[in-house]
């Protein structure tokens, strides 16, 4: 049993795309965690990154652009026994999906949220994404981006995220470890993954990401919110690693009244027409 797909599959990403190592990292993470395909659900939207579930052998729901978090919420809260990974691009998750990003952090729903941050819209051929840097020129932003780039780390912290991390696709091993931690985290876990898009982002290249990032060192205390904000707001270089982790609260399904009553996933609970008849006949 492996999450790897049969070899004849045609992966529709460009050669050299940062999505390939992320795929590898994810597959290895899942396998090293000894998860079974049948217990894992990948939920994604639309975009290059969002094609990921199609290239992994496991349950998936590949839904609408921007809406994966909402579907993921429905999956996890209906069956908390499943491991749910919500994955997609920066446009998918922070643009069209911005509202679900915010509010599912507030829910602290127990999903790993993997966002491929290539600072561009890949699939639609190179428009600005919410994380595109100022001045980035595209066929649509002809004189360069004039909107401030969105800072997913700071936003997630401000929305109350209990796990916030950043990875870099080219470091497969480290990315894998971060993904594992995110999956293991009980609650919402963001991993914003720097991912070079070789076709449409000629500015934020592999080298650029490398030159503009560094790993948090081992004695960085990621349980401190103020540390985390400091890191989130750093301007020179972007820190990589787990920036914040808190065990302050239970996840959504622990706190919801139906799961306080009992653990059984709601869809597995026996329905009885007699109790409903009472509503009519009493």
């Amino acid at each position, binding site marked *: 049993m492996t999450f790897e797909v049969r070899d004849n599959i045609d992966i529709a990403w460009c050669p050299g795309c940062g999505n390939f190592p992320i795929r590898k990292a994810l597959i290895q993470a899942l396998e090293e965690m000894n998860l079974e395909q049948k217990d894992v659900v990948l939920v994604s939207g639309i975009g290059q990154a969002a094609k990921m579930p199609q290239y992994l*052998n496991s349950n*998936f*729901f590949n839904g609408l652009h921007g809406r994966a978090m909402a579907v993921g919420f*429905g999956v996890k809260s209906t069956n908390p026994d499943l491991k749910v990974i919500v994955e997609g691009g920066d446009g998918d998750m922070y643009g069209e999906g911005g509202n679900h990003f915010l*509010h599912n952090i507030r829910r602290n729903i127990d999903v790993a949220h993997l966002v491929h941050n290539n600072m561009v819209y890949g699939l639609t051929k190179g428009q600005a994404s919410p994380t595109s840097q100022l001045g980035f020129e595209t066929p649509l932003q002809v004189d360069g981006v004039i909107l401030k780039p969105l800072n997913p780390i700071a936003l997630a912290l401000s929305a109350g995220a209990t796990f916030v991390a950043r990875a870099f696709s080219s470091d497969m091993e480290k990315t894998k470890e971060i993904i594992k931690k995110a999956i293991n985290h009980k609650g919402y876990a963001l991993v914003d993954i720097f991912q070079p898009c070789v076709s449409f982002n000629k500015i934020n290249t592999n080298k650029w990401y490398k030159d503009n990032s560094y790993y948090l060192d081992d004695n960085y205390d990621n349980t401190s919110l103020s540390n985390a904000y400091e890191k989130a707001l750093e301007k020179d270089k972007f820190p990589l690693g787990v920036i914040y982790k808190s065990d302050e609260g239970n996840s959504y399904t622990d706190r919801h009244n139906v799961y306080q*009553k009992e653990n059984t996933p709601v*869809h597995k609970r026996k329905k009885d027409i007699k109790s409903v008849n009472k509503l*009519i006949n009493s």
Partner: protein
Amino acid sequence: MGKTVNIVLSGEAGEGLKTIEKLITDLVSKYYYYFATKEVMSRVRGGNNTTEIRISEDKVYAFQKNIDVLFLLNDNALYRLEERINEKTVIFGSEKYKDDKIIKNKKSKLEIIDLDKLAKEAGNKLFKNTIIFGFLLGMMELEREEGNEKIKEFFNDKKEDIIDKNIDALEMGYKKGENHTDLFNIKKGNIENCKNISGTEAVGIGALAGGCNFVGSYPMSPATGVLTYLAAKGKEFDVLVEQAEDEIAALNMVIGSWYTGGRGLATTSGGGFALMQEAVSLSGVSETPCVVHIAQRPGPATGMPTRMEQGDLNLTVYAGHGEFPRIIVAPGTLKDGIELTQKAFYLADKYQVPAFILTDQFYVDSNSQMEKFELDEKYLEQNIVETDEDYKRYKITEDGISPRGIPGYGKGVVKGDSHEHTEEGLGTEDFNIRRKMNEKRMRKTVKILEDYIEPELIGDKDYKNLLVGWGSTYGVLSEYVNKSKDSKTSFLNIKQLYPLSENLKEYFEKAEKVLVVENNFKGQLANLLKLELGIKVDEKVLKYSGEPFSIEEIESKLKEVL
């Protein structure tokens, strides 16, 4: 038809009309038939709202325009009612109305009663409602003691002192009411085996009966009631209820839940449903079932948030981009509210399509007696298979239905996809597969029609004129037919609006004249009948002011055209 008295209470938002309604209908429903409805403004306090309680010797279902007995709860309670009073109306109101022009013009009878003063005498202005309750009991010659019991029940969490004072207030009103027993000369009966419920509760119960275990919704009038109903029942009935951040999230959550094996519901109104269109399409292509309750209100856009209309049938029939099957039901009676909602879950599950329950503000906000009945357990059945290792989510089958697996149940994996896909559930750009998958999905309509929910014919089977309606016009049209004793005119209530069965044609072929009655501008059902079944509609009787049809209005409109 037996006699009916139409009692209307007019007051401000937040003045307690609901409390009086609840107290009085609980009591009268043991001895009389009743129908209660309200029309409220889109505000929390002030303005002018009314509650109508029709009490009758026979079953009544309709909004009645003409008021028999009117209570004006404050000095600003009459200005909207000019059209509804006449020389037969008896009005109870304060001194302020003594020289009121409207009352004079309409030659109504004013009985001065200073509710505020009485309430103050009773100790607090909050006693006003209890006084009116007492008044009504007196007028109806119901037992004081029964009233007292209701009071105790209602205020059971309050201090004894409060209960006592309320009982005194009730007595105060009772005495006044006793002087007006002439206003209520209705034969007392014994109504058994009935339950008072509202349209909202009917849909809520129906959801539970359909095995609903997940609700993702965003509040929106007039659909919020179903949401709070299920929230209140959630823990007992194992329903996970979540307030979504917006309607788009709501339906995507619900779809996520169905994918996982849940039975999810979203409840909303037209504007919220407009936001769900893309997700409806997702349900269509991914063949993930979903159920949406749409409580209509007048549009476009915000329109009139607390009023009624049947303007969103088209939106529902054509919801979502691209082409895929769907099911639409519209309850007319309270029992239908339960049964059709229950079936919506069952059919969505069975055919893996979106199913819609179309109601409207008038339907959800009215209440009446419903005869008790036993629900059919069959509709809790789930069509979920245990997957094997090479499970294919979208297997092409003769009837278009692919056995549906869910994650974690069986050895296989379940791939749900919003792209056009292969049998396995992987995105494809193959034109042939596309064509076949499209045809497979569309084929399900044939099967859906085998389960077609038959319409109800009210009136004589040998009719000349056929009135046709859907949803909440059930009340007024059935009352009209029952009352008119004109055996030439019957009423066909269509319960399943989409897809429409060819069998319906029979009803139309028999008719010399077909009249479709709807609360919208275009005659949306009439158009659907024309398009889908080629039916020639002779007359559309339409109303789009935000108000339901009154029984008087239907009588006079039909007199014109029949």
